[in-house]
C-alpha cells in the first residue's frame, strides 16, 4: 500500500534537498559546451541591444529562445552577487530535476529509495558526465521531470490540476528545441488520451479536455512563430535552416545513422526494454507509455540531428530524465506477484551498469562539444584586414559564426542571422565591408540551398576574395562594380 511520506516529513525536507543539491551542483567542475557559448553570445548581444541577439533568440531551432531567456535571467540574478550565471542556471535546473525524482519517491512512500536518483547521478558515468556539462539545455529536464511527477499524481488523485500542470510543462518543452517540441507535442496528445480514458471510466465529463491539454503546446508553437514574424518578418524563418538541410537526408543515410552504435542509441535502446515491461505489467503503465514515446522520439531526433548536422538540442538532458524516470517508475510501481519490484529494480540496475560499461567505450563528443574550430583567430583576421582597410567591418552570418566572434557593439564585426544581399549592398554604400564565410561543410550553414554555400563556390560579381585560410575559411571584400562593368559577368 502506497503512503504519502512526503506529507509526513517536515515541510523543509524537499527545500533542504533542493538547496543542498543546488550548492553541490554549483560547485562541481562543469565543462563548457558549445551550446552554452552560443547562448552566452546571444544573451550578451541582447543585453547590448544588438539586433543579431534578437534575431538569434527566436530565429532558430538549435539554440532555442527559452534557454537564452533563462540564461539571461540567471545572469541578471547571479552577476550582482558575483556568481556565474551559466553555472547557476545548470545547477538550478539539475537540482530541480533531481528534487522532483526525490519528491516522487517520497510522495509514493519510498523513503529508503529517495536517495536513488541522486546516487545514480553521482555514480553512473554517463549521467555524471552529462551532469557535468555546462549546458543551458538542462532547462528542458525540469518540465520533462515535472510531467512524470504529475502523471504519478494523476494516477492517484485524478485531480485535473495534475493534467493541467503536465500540459503546461508540455508547452514549455515545446520551446526547448526540436527534441522538446516533438516530445512535448507527443506527450500532450498522450495526456489527452490518458485523461479522457480515466475520466470516462469515472463517468466524469470529458468535453473541453482536448482544448485544455493541447492549447499550451499549440500556444508555445504559436508564440514562437509570432516572434519569428515580429523579428524576422517571416513566420517560418526559424525553420528555414532546418528545411534547407532536410533534402540532404536519404533514407539509407538516416537508417545507417539510426543503427550505427553510439552512446545515445545504446542507452536508449537498453532502456526501452524495462520500459516496455513497466508499460505492460505495472500500475504505472500510463507514465511508462509516455516515456516509451519520448525515448523513441529522442532517438529519432538524435539521428535526424546527426544526419543534417545540427546539434541534438536538449536530447541528452531529456535522455537523462528518461533514465531516471525509468528507475523511479521501477521503484514505485506495483508489478504482478511473480515479479517483485526488488527483482525488477535489481535487473534494471544491472542493465544500467552494463549499458554504461558499453557506453563508456564511446566518446561523448556529442555531449560536450567545444567552441567551433577551423576559424581564423580574431586577432589574425582583424590584423589582416587592418593592413589595407583599417575601417572595414566584417559581416558574419548565422549563429555559430557570430558567436565565435562576439562583438555586441559591432565595432569590428557585424552579425546577422540571415544573409540579405540588398541590405548588405545598401550598407556597403556607407562603409567598407568584408564577409567571412566558412567552408560549406554543414556546420555553420546548410551545405545546399544556402546563399553562403553558393558564394563560397561561385562568388559574386561584387565580391573579391582576399584570403582563404588552410581550414577553408574565405574572407571576401565587398566591392560593388559600377553598372555593367562586372569582370566576372564578362568572364562568364
Amino acid at each position, binding site marked *: 500500500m502506497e503512503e504519502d511520506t512526503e506529507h509526513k516529513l517536515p515541510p523543509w525536507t524537499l527545500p533542504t534537498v533542493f538547496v543542498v543539491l543546488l550548492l553541490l551542483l554549483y560547485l562541481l567542475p562543469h565543462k563548457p559546451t558549445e551550446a552554452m557559448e552560443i547562448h552566452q553570445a546571444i544573451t550578451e548581444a541582447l543585453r547590448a541591444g544588438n539586433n543579431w541577439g534578437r534575431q538569434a533568440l527566436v530565429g532558430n531551432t538549435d539554440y532555442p529562445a527559452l534557454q537564452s531567456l533563462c540564461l539571461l535571467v540567471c545572469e541578471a540574478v547571479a552577476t550582482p552577487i558575483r556568481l556565474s550565471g551559466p553555472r547557476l542556471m545548470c545547477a538550478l535546473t539539475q537540482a530541480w530535476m533531481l528534487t522532483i525524482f526525490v519528491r516522487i519517491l517520497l510522495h509514493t512512500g519510498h523513503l529508503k529509495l529517495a536517495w536513488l536518483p541522486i546516487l545514480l547521478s553521482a555514480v553512473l558515468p554517463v549521467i555524471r558526465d552529462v551532469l557535468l556539462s555546462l549546458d543551458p539545455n538542462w532547462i528542458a529536464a525540469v518540465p520533462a521531470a515535472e510531467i512524470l511527477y504529475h502523471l504519478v499524481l494523476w494516477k492517484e488523485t485524478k485531480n485535473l490540476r495534475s493534467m493541467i500542470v503536465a500540459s503546461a510543462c508540455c508547452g514549455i518543452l515545446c520551446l526547448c528545441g526540436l527534441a522538446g517540441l516533438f516530445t512535448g507535442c507527443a506527450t500532450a496528445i498522450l495526456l489527452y488520451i490518458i485523461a479522457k480514458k480515466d475520466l470516462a471510466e469515472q463517468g466524469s465529463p470529458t468535453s473541453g479536455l482536448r*482544448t485544455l491539454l493541447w492549447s499550451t503546446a499549440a500556444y508555445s508553437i504559436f508564440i514562437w512563430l509570432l516572434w519569428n514574424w515580429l523579428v524576422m518578418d517571416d513566420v517560418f524563418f526559424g525553420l528555414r535552416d532546418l528545411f534547407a538541410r532536410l533534402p540532404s537526408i536519404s533514407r539509407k543515410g538516416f537508417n545507417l545513422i539510426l543503427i550505427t552504435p553510439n552512446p545515445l542509441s545504446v542507452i536508449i535502446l537498453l532502456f526501452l526494454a524495462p520500459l516496455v515491461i513497466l508499460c505492460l505489467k505495472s500500475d504505472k503503465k500510463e507514465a511508462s507509455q509516455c516515456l516509451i514515446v519520448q525515448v523513441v522520439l529522442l532517438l529519432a531526433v538524435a539521428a535526424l540531428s546527426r544526419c543534417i548536422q545540427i546539434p541534438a538540442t536538449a536530447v541528452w538532458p531529456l535522455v537523462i530524465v528518461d533514465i531516471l524516470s525509468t528507475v523511479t517508475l521501477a521503484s514505485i510501481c506495483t508489478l504482478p506477484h511473480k515479479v517483485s519490484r526488488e527483482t525488477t529494480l535489481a535487473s534494471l540496475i544491472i542493465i544500467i551498469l552494463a549499458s554504461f560499461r558499453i557506453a563508456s567505450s564511446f566518446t561523448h563528443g556529442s555531449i560536450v562539444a567545444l567552441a567551433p574550430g577551423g576559424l581564423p583567430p580574431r586577432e589574425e583576421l582583424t590584423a589582416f584586414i587592418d593592413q589595407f582597410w583599417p575601417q572595414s567591418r566584417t559581416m558574419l552570418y548565422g549563429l555559430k559564426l557570430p558567436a565565435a566572434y562576439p562583438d555586441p557593439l559591432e565595432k569590428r564585426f557585424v552579425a546577422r542571422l540571415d544573409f540579405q544581399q540588398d541590405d548588405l549592398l545598401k550598407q556597403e554604400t556607407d562603409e567598407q565591408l568584408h564577409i567571412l564565410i566558412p567552408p560549406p561543410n554543414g556546420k555553420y550553414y546548410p551545405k545546399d540551398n544556402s546563399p553562403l554555400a553558393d558564394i563560397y563556390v561561385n562568388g559574386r560579381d561584387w565580391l573579391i576574395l582576399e584570403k582563404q585560410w588552410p581550414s577553408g575559411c574565405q574572407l571576401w571584400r565587398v566591392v560593388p562594380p559600377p553598372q555593367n562593368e562586372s569582370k566576372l559577368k564578362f568572364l562568364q
Partner: protein
Amino acid sequence: MPQPPPNKICDLTTHDSSAPLSPRGFPQATLTLCAWQKWFLIGAVTALLLWAVFDYRSELLVVNFILTVFYLLTTLYRMLIIELALRKPREMSFTKAEISRPPNGKKWPKYMVILPMYKEGDVLPNLIRGLQKLDYPKDRLEIRLLIEEDDEETLAVADKLDLKPPFKVVRIPKSYPRTKPKACNVGIEDGDADYLVIYDAEDQTEPDQLKKAAHAFAKCPPNVACIQAKLGYYNPTFNLLTRCFTAEYATWFGLCLPGLDCLQAPIPLGGTSNHFRLNVLRQVGGWDEYNVTEDCDLGLRLFSQGWRTRILESTTWEQACPSVPYWIKQRSRWVKGYVQTYCIHTRDLLNFHRKLGFWNSLQFHLLIGGTFISQLVNPLYWIMTLLWLFVRPAGLDQFFPTSIFAMGSFCLFVGNFIFVYTSAIACVRRGVGELAKYSLLMPFYWMMMSIAAWKGFLQLFSNPHHWEKTKHFADPNATAKSS
C-alpha cells in the same frame, strides 16, 4: 451585555440623501469622492499635465513603468489564486446524506429568502415554480417577494398567482433612493429568521442549496457571516456573448472565488445567492442603498469588520445577458460600482489599511482597484501592441527600456495566455467544457468589457447613482441544468 441589533435598518425618506455616512454609520456612496480624494485627483492630474508640458518622455516612461508593474502584479496574483483554487479547493461541499438531517441534529434553522423585483411580472411565474422546488421545511422558510408599491405590473401577476406561505409579497413603499439595496433593507426589517438569502428574479437555484448553506453555517466558526453560493448560466449556448459570459462566470465563481477563499481574502460578493446570518447583516447595517454594486461593498464591509465569507459548492443558475447593448449596460454598472466601492473604502485609507493589514489591503487594491483600472487601461496597451505589431513606429522603443520590455513581454505573452487559459480550465471544471474553445475568444470579450468600463467610469461623474438595471429575458427555451 451587548444590545441585539435593531431590526429597523433604514428610513423611508422622500429625497436622496447627501450625507457621506449612512444612518447606520458606514460610509455610503452618496459621495463619490471625499475631499482628500478630490484634491489628490486634481493634484495628480495637474502634476501629470505639468510634467507632460516640461518633459513628456520621462513622464510616459514612468507611467508606463508603473502600469507595467501593476499588470505584472495582477498577473502574478491571478496565477496565485488559480493555483490555490486548483491545488486545495476549499469550497464547502456536502453530500446528500449529510444534508438529510438538520445541522447538529436540531431543528432546521429559520430561513428567509428575499427576491427584490421591479417590473418583472413576466418572469414571476417561472420564478415561483423554481422556488416551489426548494427542498427546505416550509414551516421554517419564508420567501419574500419585494415589489415596489408602484410596480403594478408585477403586483398584478403576484396577485393573480394567489401565493400562499411560505411566499409573502412585501410592498416596498415609495422612498428614496429607489434602488435594489433599498428594497432589500426595507424587506428584511420585520423578518424573524436565522439566515437570509437573496436571489434575483430569473434565478433557478439548486433545490438543496438552503440545506447546504444551513449546514455550512453550522460547520463554520461564528465569524463566518456569509456563505456565497456559486453562480452559473443556464443559457450558455444561446449566442457567442453568452458563451463568453458563461466562461467568465465559470472563472470567477469556479476558480477566483475559491482561490480568494483559500487566501482568506476580502471577497466581493456576487449579486445573488449570498446567504447571511441575519443578525450580523442587520448589525453591519445591511446594504448601501446608494452603491450600484451593493453586494461587492457589503462583502468588503463585512471583511473589514472582522466577518468572513466562505464559498459553497452549490450553484444558482441565472440568465446570461444575450444582448450586447444590455450586457454593456449591466457591465458598466458593475464597473461603476467597483469604482464607487473602491473610493468608499479608501476614504479613511490609513484606518482601512490598519484594519485589514498589509496583505489583505494589497489584495483589496489588486482585486477591486485592479479590476477596473486594468479594464480602463487595457485599450491603451492594445493600441500600443497593435502599433508595435503592424506599424512599428519609430520611437515607441524608448518607452520600453529592457526592464519594462521584459515585464511587458511577460504580461503580453504569458499573462494574457494565463487569463485565457484559466477560462478554459474553469469551463472544464464547471462542467461546460464545450465552451473551453470559446475561451480563446476572450480577448474580444475583454474589449467589450473595456467599452463598458469606460461607459461606467464616465457615468460615475455624470450620473453616479443611476442603476442600469439588468434586463431579464423571458426565454421559453432556457431551462436550468439539473443539479
